[in-house]
């Protein structure tokens, strides 16, 4: 089957910095693909380039003609100067009926919040409203950039179950960026491990055993616990006060894949 979105030799620059180098990837109808990678590895840039929000420096992105994308951005700030209820937000840019809007909200686990102003929602509620809006366009592909930010652990698990269910019912493909490695590995058909370039890609099993992936996330020890510990380090790298765990010195983590592309 022809792919919904494909990238060939895609490179993206931000000023002088090469954020993405020579990325090849395809998303087939109905599959769940997850992009993983450390902070600053270009995950969001890749998503944005695939949607058409970033210009390719070289290479190209091809989207299937008339492809309907349901997009859930990483963060969305809605200025309080704009009076916007959840109901009105769901009707952008295409007007939907009240029944459709209510059904979508019920499905994403936030029933009955139609009349609430969007700027007063909690992070978790807002994330679900964004998903409801993405589903209302009847997408052939859902694109989610770290969709579980602001959700607690049960919320995160429920969110991924919902995604799997949506895929099952509508046949929509799903492309997401995620930090929830341990959950993602189970929920995806394919995983793309990114660090400026595609380090490795394949089924979760293949990727989790690939040396490139272990260089980034594992320590060669394998196991969910090690993965989790490592992710924890990554999440707090910007925190200057974060002490190094002697058992996990940062210097021991090779940060790029085997080769350097600078």
């Amino acid at each position, binding site marked *: 089957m022809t792919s919904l979105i494909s990238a060939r030799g895609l490179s993206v620059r931000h000023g002088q910095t090469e954020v993405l180098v020579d990325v090849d990837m395809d998303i087939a109808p109905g599959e769940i693909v997850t992009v993983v990678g450390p902070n600053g590895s270009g995950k969001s840039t890749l998503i944005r380039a695939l949607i058409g929000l970033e210009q390719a420096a070289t290479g190209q992105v091809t989207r299937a003609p008339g492809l309907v994308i349901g*997009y859930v*951005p990483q963060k969305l700030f809605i*200025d309080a*100067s704009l*009076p916007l*209820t959840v109901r009105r937000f769901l009707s*952008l*840019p*295409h007007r939907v009926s009240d029944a459709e809007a209510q059904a979508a909200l019920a499905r994403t686990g936030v029933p009955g919040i139609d009349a609430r102003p969007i700027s007063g929602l909690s992070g978790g509620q807002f994330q679900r409203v964004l998903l409801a809006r993405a589903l209302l366009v009847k997408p052939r592909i859902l*694109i989610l950039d770290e969709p579980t930010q602001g959700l607690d652990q049960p919320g995160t698990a429920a969110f991924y179950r919902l995604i799997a269910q949506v895929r099952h019912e509508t046949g929509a493909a799903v492309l997401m960026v995620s930090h929830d490695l341990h959950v993602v590995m189970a929920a995806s058909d394919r995983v793309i491990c990114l660090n400026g370039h595609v380090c490795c890609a394949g089924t979760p099993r293949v990727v989790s055993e690939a040396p490139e992936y272990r260089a980034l996330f594992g320590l060669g020890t394998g196991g969910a616990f090690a993965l989790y510990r490592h992710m924890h380090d990554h999440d707090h790298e910007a925190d200057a006060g974060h002490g190094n765990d002697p058992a996990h010195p940062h210097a021991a983590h090779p940060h790029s894949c085997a080769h350097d592309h600078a």
Partner: protein
Amino acid sequence: MTMLDDFLIRAALAGVGLTFATGPLGSFVVWRRMAYFGDATAHAAILGVALSFGLGMPFYAGTLLVALTMAIAVTRLSRRGQSMDTVLGVIAHSALAFGLVAASFISGLRVDLSAFLFGDILTVGRGDVAVIWAGAAAVVAMLVWRWQRLLTATVNEELAQASGIAPERERLFLTLALALTVAVAIKIVGALLIAAMLIVPAATARRLARSPEGMALWAVAVGAASVLAGLWASLTWDTPGGPSIVAASAILFALSCLIRARS
């Protein structure tokens, strides 16, 4: 058409006509934080006034052309990595300065200049009223036509792009609407106070509205009330028209702050 012979009726028609454009457009200016951008475009219009007098062009056409050129130049420059704030600061004041310098070379305009800086609503003729209503109608038609797309791009450009909307194009429509509004508003409130007609009624409307559409309509109502109140004040106390209208809208804004904000 004796009714239109009355300067006061003409002034009221011109001012109220203008608010049909400034209400919805001003709402976008508030939502997208374009206040300074509106100000810059309006200041540039003074250069347009001077050029159209110097070159013998029709006044509205010259003003529209320069306002549009400025607005597009600002958008282009800011995309080249200059901070929007700085670009606007440079362009707005340069255009105003060059406009004032250019105007000083044109005999006759020197005397009239204050009419373009502060507006002279009580002297608008029938032709002006027609141009203002046509300009406002064009702005309203454009905004209604693009409403859903403009609103989506205002909420979030990425969401818009993912839905197949080009945010750049929507921004261009707003820029065009702004230039058009500036060109027709300059005789009413003057270049220095046009931005106030955009922002103050919309900011007042925010306190009263629960939806984007409601805010746009309230902004029209508040703007129209300001025009009528300002004209009345101008007649009663012999104060300048444009500033009186803006002062009236500021008082309405202050009153709206007493109302508890909805949503």
